[in-house]
């Protein structure tokens, strides 16, 4: 129950940030009173056609982290479509933890040298005690 309350507080803190293109916000701090933190970001498809996106989380050295729970790791968006992403990360006893939450658009047509775009937001979860 305590973890659930902390997550709700975290969501409330980031909900006031306005939405924009690709990933928004690009940076945010979230306060949690539990050993879990949750961050929410908005993802928009800037392309003129429907796209598939892959969602990943990285640490500050760009190593993939596998203990972050993502609501969705793959999704499709219509042109101009927008959705929200939720990532829940454990603090594992640390006072704070930072991650990059990244959305990568999949190339719709592969040639010998495909290019894909990735936008990453940096989120920091800070632990506070009651």
């Amino acid at each position, binding site marked *: 129950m305590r973890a659930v309350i902390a997550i709700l507080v975290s969501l409330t803190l980031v909900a006031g940030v*306005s939405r924009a293109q690709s990933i928004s916000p690009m*940076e945010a701090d979230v306060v949690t009173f539990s050993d879990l933190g949750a961050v929410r970001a908005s993802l928009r498809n800037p392309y003129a056609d429907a796209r598939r996106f892959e969602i990943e989380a990285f640490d500050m050295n760009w190593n993939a982290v596998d203990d972050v729970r993502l609501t969705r790791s793959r999704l499709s968006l219509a042109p101009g479509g927008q959705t929200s992403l939720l990532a829940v990360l454990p603090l594992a006893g640390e006072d704070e933890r930072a991650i990059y939450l990244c959305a990568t658009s999949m190339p719709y047509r*592969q*040639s*010998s040298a495909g*290019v894909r*775009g990735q*936008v990453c937001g940096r989120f920091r979860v800070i632990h506070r005690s009651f």
Partner: protein
Amino acid sequence: MKKVLGSAPVLLLAMGTGFAQTDDVIFNATVSDSCTVVADTNGTLGLNGDGTVLASTEGGGSAGQATITATNTTFNVTIDNVTAFTTGPADADTNTNFATTYDASGATTASGVAGATPTNLGSGVTTLAVNASATKTSGIFSAGTYSLTATVRCAP
């Protein structure tokens, strides 16, 4: 005297309409920090003369292109390290080194930057030309179809 009296009703009528006043209509807007990366064009790899290099800068090759729109100057662009071909013959990745470089124009100016080296993006629209190469340190590229993917990253 008649002229003065004649103008009095006009003055009274004007007073009855009240005082004219102006007021401001305020328009507010918030542009949040954001970065958008659109991969516009895929590139093509060309093979060099001795069959040891597949690169977008070789004959028959072409650079890929991406457009990045940043709303402030706190974001960096990099290209994620390429470690393997996406598709290729069984020996495609054997004894093969991969590299990427990029040139930036528009809101950001850069030339021949190694993919992993971050460049601070200017606020506005940046056009990125992406070059990729695969080099055999031993042997040559065998016959087959090769493809690799370069990921253009925008991050704080």
